[in-house]
Each structure stands twice: as structure tokens, then as C-alpha cells.
């Protein structure tokens, strides 16, 4: 009997292995932000932040924050040497124009057609889409990062999103704390299972059509 234990760290660790040197990556607020901590030292990714910079660096030391230098979540950040600032039109020109290789963002729901919902629970919580709709529409590869199960036990991966969509058919890859999925045609393909979970457990605990890839393999953080 496998017990589900939420692990944002495992999600971040696995996503961090997707990138190759030179990739331009946008990490959404929240869970995706953690990904930056786990990029292997031999891989150089270039982080873009939609509020207007390329070359995002780590958080500043306490007391060295700059009021004019934040990430898209208003947290103080730094700029790496060789980075650059620009306005919001240029920032989204870079995003929409296909100059961002990979976007990682959190979701409320993601479905087997690659639809994504993360900006609105009607009548309840309406944060707004911010830059998410442009990021999904414009990035070459879109990775949805999410815990596998909701607090109530249902899976975040759905047959069909019930919430208002952030984008139609935008998601390429879903990484949860139990496995790594690709969206192919109209179903999820499980490419890796994260031990101690098994493909059988994952298929059983996903409210969507999951095909286990013939070369599906285990992965351990």
C-alpha cells in the first residue's frame, strides 16, 4: 500500500533536469520558482522574468534589496552579470515571439488535451491571468508543475478542465510528485514514475486517460 505524500521538492527537482544549457526559461510564481534551486551546476539556463528582465539571479542578501528590482511576484531579486532590463511590451514580445524555450507554471487543473486552468475560480477566487496566457501561447515548451492530488483526494490531471481555461492545448509536459507525463493527442503518456509510486498506482490515482509509455522508467530525486 503506497501512501501519497505531497512533495513539491520532487516536482522542482525533476523539472530542473528538463533544461539544457542556453535554454531561456520563465518560472511562474510559487512552486515553479523552486525549480531554480535544483538546476544542475553543469547546466546554464537563462531565466526570464515577465516584469522585465533576462538573467534573473538569486535573492539578494538581507539588507541589499533594491526597490526597483523584483521578480513577477514582487520579491526582491538580483540580476546576473550580462543580464538586461526592458519594458513590458519587449518582455512579452520575447515571450510571445518564441524566444522563451520553456515556461514552467502552476495549475489548478490540467487536462489530457493539454488545456490548462490556473487563473480563476468563478465567484470565489479570481487572481487574474497575469502573464500566464501569453506564456502558454508563446513559449516553445510549456511544463505544468503540480502536486498530483488535491487536498480532497481527486487528481489535478483531468479528462477535461472544469474551470475557465488559461489556454487551449498549451501544455506539453506535466510533472507532478508522482510522475512525468507528456500530453500526446488526447491523453497523457506516463514517461517516468517517481518511486515509491508505481505506474499502476499512478493510473489508478489519475482522473484522466493515462497511457504508460513502453519505455516508462523509474526516477528518484
Amino acid at each position, binding site marked *: 500500500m503506497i501512501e501519497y505524500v505531497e512533495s513539491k521538492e520532487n516536482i522542482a527537482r525533476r523539472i530542473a533536469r528538463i533544461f539544457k544549457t542556453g535554454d531561456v526559461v520563465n518560472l511562474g510564481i510559487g512552486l515553479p520558482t523552486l525549480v531554480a534551486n535544483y538546476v544542475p551546476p553543469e547546466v546554464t539556463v537563462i531565466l526570464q*522574468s*515577465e*516584469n*522585465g*528582465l533576462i538573467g534573473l539571479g538569486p535573492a539578494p542578501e538581507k539588507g541589499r534589496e*533594491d*526597490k*526597483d*528590482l*523584483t*521578480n*513577477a*511576484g*514582487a520579491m526582491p531579486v538580483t*540580476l546576473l552579470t550580462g543580464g538586461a*532590463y*526592458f*519594458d*513590458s*511590451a519587449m*518582455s*512579452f514580445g520575447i*515571450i*510571445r515571439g518564441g524566444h522563451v524555450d520553456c515556461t514552467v507554471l502552476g495549475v489548478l487543473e490540467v487536462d489530457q488535451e493539454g488545456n490548462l486552468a490556473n*487563473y*480563476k475560480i468563478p*465567484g*470565489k*477566487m*479570481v*487572481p*487574474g*491571468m*497575469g*502573464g*500566464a*496566457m*501569453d506564456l502558454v*501561447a*508563446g513559449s516553445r515548451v510549456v511544463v505544468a508543475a503540480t502536486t498530483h492530488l488535491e487536498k480532497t483526494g481527486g487528481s489535478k490531471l483531468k479528462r477535461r478542465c472544469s474551470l*475557465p*481555461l*488559461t*489556454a*487551449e*492545448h498549451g501544455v506539453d509536459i506535466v510533472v507532478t510528485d508522482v510522475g512525468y507525463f507528456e500530453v500526446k493527442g488526447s491523453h497523457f503518456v506516463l514517461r517516468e514514475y517517481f518511486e515509491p509510486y508505481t505506474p499502476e498506482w499512478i493510473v489508478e490515482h489519475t482522473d484522466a486517460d493515462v497511457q504508460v509509455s513502453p519505455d516508462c522508467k523509474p526516477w528518484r530525486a
Partner: protein
Amino acid sequence: MIEKPVINAAEAAKMVNEGDVVHVGGFLACGSPLGILAALAARGTKNLTLVCNDTAVLDEKNGRVTGVAPLVKNRQFRKMIISHIGTNPESQRQMNAGETEVVLVPQGTLAERVRAAGCGLGGILTATGLGTEVQEGKQVVQVQGRTFLVEEALPGDVALIKARKADKAGNLVYSKTARNFNPLMAMACKTVIVEAEEIVNIGEIDPDQVHTPSILVDYLVKA
């Protein structure tokens, strides 16, 4: 070059009239003209339409009330055209209660709509928002076999923006991520008022490094 009038924040706030469409620079208040916004909150001008990236942070429990948040709390906006209201629960409450009209716009589309207004374009064609609620009521155009939404220009009456440095003619330089929507809004409004951290003599800004040329600016406020 002609010098622009330097006014104070209260005078700037007076230039915003009831019913105006007001573009406010800043991203979660980073790069917002805080002095002018405080004066506008004090003045209490109502019935405004806000065009801004977000409604900033309203977290009174922790003493964080930033950017346009006090104006939201004052109910000075009858409408908000905005990409994000998730850090200001009062704007969400007003939206859900039907007290304030909130039009959510994808951030990149908002940037292009403001830019289009400033650049004399009728609008732009984008794939962002296709197949979502953002598409509702919008024209669609086919270009080279692909489908795009028509997103219309979004002009304003007054732009309230923030610069790191202005020269007396109104040439502007922004700082780091405090740039964001400010240069776009400087093009899109009839009256452009800039809160500058520093006002220098004409000639002190390298002409290759000007982010917003002087002719777009009407008034300067010293931050």
C-alpha cells in the same frame, strides 16, 4: 528644448478628472508613482477607469498597502482593466459583488493594447486568449492560415508614471524592473505626468539612452 512644468503631487492629482481613464505604471507597485497616487487617494476623485498591470497589494493585517491599493479601497474606480488582482482581496471582493467592473486582460495583450494606442494602431492580432473567456465578444482574423484575436488599442486620458530620472525637457530613464508599463503608458494618454526620483539639467542624459523622449511628457513631479 522646451522645459516642462514641474508641479507637486497634489497639483498632479488635480489633473485627474472624475470619469477619466487613468493609466498607472508599475508592477505590484514597483515603478508606480507613489507620491501622485497618495495625492490622488487623498483627493478622492471618483468614477475613474484604471488601466494598470495589477491592483498591487492590500494586506492591512501585515501593514502592506501599496501602489493603487488605497484607491481601490476608497472605491475610486468604477472600472479596472487589469491583468492581475490576486494580491488585493478588496478588488476581488468588489468584482465578485458587482460593485466594480473588472476586465481581466492577459498581461502581454495589455502591454500591446496600450502600446497600440500610443503608436496610432487600431490594435494588434494575437493568439493569446484564443479558446478562453478572453476571446468572448472579440473579432477573429485569419493570417496565413492561423487564427488570431483582434485586440483593440487602449488609450487613456491621463498617464501617471514613474521614472528614475528626468531631464527638465522631460526625457526619461527608468530603473531596472521599475520600467515595466511606464514607457508604454507615456505614449498612450492625452496628459502624461511623470514622478521622477531625480530631475537633471537638459543635456545630462545620453540621447542614445533615453527611454521616453521628452515630447511625450507634459508634467514633471519630483518624487
